[in-house]
């Protein structure tokens, strides 16, 4: 059993000028989670759901410091007075970013890791890994290098590691953020098995559709407090309008309507010829001999992990020298070098593309046109930043911004570079409804500015928000491409959610 009584927590952070700044994590939490209960925590970014998870696995107060009052009890232990390694025998944790939760490089070693730390008998651990791999159907993920796995596979390995030790409580912090629909379905199945085993499960999550049938209770957080509780019956009656109003992602994807109107015709096209490229390891290769994508709209590039979406994007951007293909755009034929000058990619991890000491410099760095002077550059930078609600951060260091603000800074640099083609790599992974919509509206703004926008994404709701055209990639080839409207929405559904054909209860 997990019990919170009068729990308040504030994170202590230090501002640039050295003063302390306390940020509210959670407040006035009184909560009792029964053994074997499945609880979903949801709400916008920074609402306190992650903090609650950290209070259960002991990272608060043992790793993240701040001001904690009240009492948290987990399986009869006072979290405050119990070292994490003792808690970890009873509480397993899965994190948002699959990249940063592995201590080992080899997957089998990683699965054994938690059990080894609890001083379990090695022979017993080996047997447990074998049975767990069978139970969770992950035999082919044993004894692999984690740097070769996809995000989805990594997340499954993380779950398997927990299953080996088999703690009575499992907490998951936005586990689906980086996963495609297939991987989310697999994750859902694992959660179902754990629920049937009687484990207590707490999931903090934005994307709710895969948890709808599993949840016994859903807690809606706002500003660190539990705003509302829903039991499983109430959850099943929540409609799309309700979730919109509450500011959370929908519980059923099939209800999400398509915003796009049927279009007459596209005027201009971007044409790719002979895009044939493979890496040394032969994985993620693409073979596209001829492809046309409308250039005056937003195109979603969809496909399962490893289908070659990122390879395609990298080739379009001109990041792969050995790609012989040419692109025809506005009547110009472009080799890879020319493409590098006309494409700009907003990466999934935007930290990789922010280089300077202030947001303003970041934007001005992109203006490579030598004919305009510094004053003019600054004026233009202010104009671009104003458009993206970032002008107040002109002097701020990019690393002091929130994730969404950083992403907008990267978009601003893209606009400043005056490159006509912008490519986004999964811009909405880990975003709540509000921020997802915000990204969608920025992308629509880019379209108005006359940019050609291509988006690699797994996010079905997001595609329906802002994309006009869909490109399905499978095994490195274009499986289908079509304009998105009420008539083609079924196609999109079938591709993204193949297993739920006609069931109507995603």
């Amino acid at each position: 059993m997990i019990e919170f009584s009068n729990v308040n927590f504030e994170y202590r952070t230090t501002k640039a000028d050295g003063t302390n700044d306390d940020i509210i994590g959670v407040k006035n939490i009184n909560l009792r989670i029964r053994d074997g209960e499945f609880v979903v925590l949801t709400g916008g970014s920074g609402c306190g759901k992650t903090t609650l998870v950290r209070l259960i696995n002991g990272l608060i107060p043992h790793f993240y410091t701040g001001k904690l009052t009240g009492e948290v009890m987990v399986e009869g232990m006072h979290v405050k007075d119990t070292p994490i390694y003792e808690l970890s025998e009873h509480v397993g944790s899965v994190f948002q970013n699959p990249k940063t939760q592995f201590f080992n490089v080899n997957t089998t070693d990683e699965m054994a890791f938690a059990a080894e730390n609890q001083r379990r008998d090695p022979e017993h651990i080996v047997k447990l890994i074998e049975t767990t791999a069978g139970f969770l159907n992950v035999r082919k993920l044993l004894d692999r290098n984690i740097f070769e796995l996809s995000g989805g596979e990594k997340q499954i390995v993380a779950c398997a590691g927990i299953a080996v030790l088999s703690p009575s409580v499992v907490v998951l912090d936005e586990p689906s953020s980086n996963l495609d629909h297939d991987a989310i379905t697999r994750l859902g199945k694992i959660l179902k098995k754990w629920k049937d085993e009687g484990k207590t499960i707490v999931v903090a999550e934005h994307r709710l559709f895969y948890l709808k049938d599993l949840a016994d209770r859903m807690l809606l957080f706002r500003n660190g407090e539990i705003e509302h509780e829903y039991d499983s019956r109430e959850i099943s009656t929540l409609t799309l309008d309700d979730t919109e109003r509450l500011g959370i992602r929908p519980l059923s994807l099939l209800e999400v309507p398509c915003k796009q109107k049927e279009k007459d015709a596209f005027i201009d096209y971007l044409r790719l010829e002979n895009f044939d490229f493979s890496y040394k390891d032969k994985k993620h290769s693409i073979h596209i001999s001829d492809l046309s994508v409308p250039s005056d709209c937003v195109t979603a590039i969809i496909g399962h992990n490893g289908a070659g979406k990122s390879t395609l994007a990298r080739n379009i951007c001109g990041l792969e020298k050995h790609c012989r293909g040419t692109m025809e755009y506005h009547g110009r034929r472009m080799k890879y070098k020319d493409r590098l000058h006309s494409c700009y990619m907003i990466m999934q991890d935007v930290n990789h593309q922010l280089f300077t000491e202030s947001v303003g410099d970041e934007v001005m760095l992109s203006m490579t046109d030598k004919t305009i002077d510094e004053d003019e550059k600054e004026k233009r930078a202010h104009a671009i930043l104003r458009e993206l609600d970032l002008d107040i951060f002109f002097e701020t260091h990019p690393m002091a911004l929130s994730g969404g603000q950083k992403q907008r800074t990267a978009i601003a640099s893209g606009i400043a570079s005056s490159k006509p083609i912008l490519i986004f790599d999964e811009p909405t992974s880990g975003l709540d409804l509000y921020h997802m919509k915000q990204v969608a509206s920025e992308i629509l703004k880019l379209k108005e500015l006359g940019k050609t926008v291509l988006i690699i994404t797994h996010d079905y709701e997001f595609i329906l928000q802002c994309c006009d055209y869909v490109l399905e990639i499978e095994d490195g080839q274009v499986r289908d491409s079509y304009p998105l409207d009420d008539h083609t929405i079924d196609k999109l559904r079938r591709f993204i959610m193949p297993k739920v054909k006609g069931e109507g209860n995603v």
Partner: protein
Amino acid sequence: MGLKFDPRTKLMLMITIGLIMMSGKLTGPEYILRLVCTAIPFILLLSIKSFKSAILYAILLSGTVFCEGFIVPYTNGVMNLIVMTICGVISRFGPGYLMGWYFVSSTSVSEFITAMKKMHFPDVVTIPMSVMFRYFPTLKEEYLSIHDAMKMREIGQGVKNPFQYVEYVLVPIMMSTVQIANDLSAASLTKGLGVNNGRTHICRISMKAYDWLLILAMVSMLVIFYAF
């Protein structure tokens, strides 16, 4: 060659080669020892099937050994200085560097931890060192995507301003590795990693006859090196 050595043997090899290559002279018995030490990484690289790096290493090192033995004595002045410096850096650091690379790529994290435990190193030493194994591939991943980002921004290109290039690479790499290190620590803690709690190992390592043989050979090389 499916020869798999115990991590302890590999450590011993690494230390011996490092010591002899860094400080050995170019004459007498020491020169022969240096030749042996130069050959070892080549054989080991072959044993883990990195043929490309093995061959590159062989060409580079035999070139420098040849230069040191046959060209250096016949040159003088500036030419001598240049050849000496280049050869010196390659022959002194090359084998040690390749041994390090071999060690990291042929040893798993758990083998390393187990070996350190058997040698009675405290966890405070072992655990930070073991993170190294996943740090290098992570660093490579991060570097590659930052490099892409720079290409796209058209910054840091060309050799005009190397310092700016370094700054542009280092700032984002620092930011993201600090974040990764932080997340990784949190995740490892929740998996019960702690210092001096003791842990068990599913990984089995053991010293075979050829491990002992190699260690004996290394010890005798060190004895010859320092005694004569």
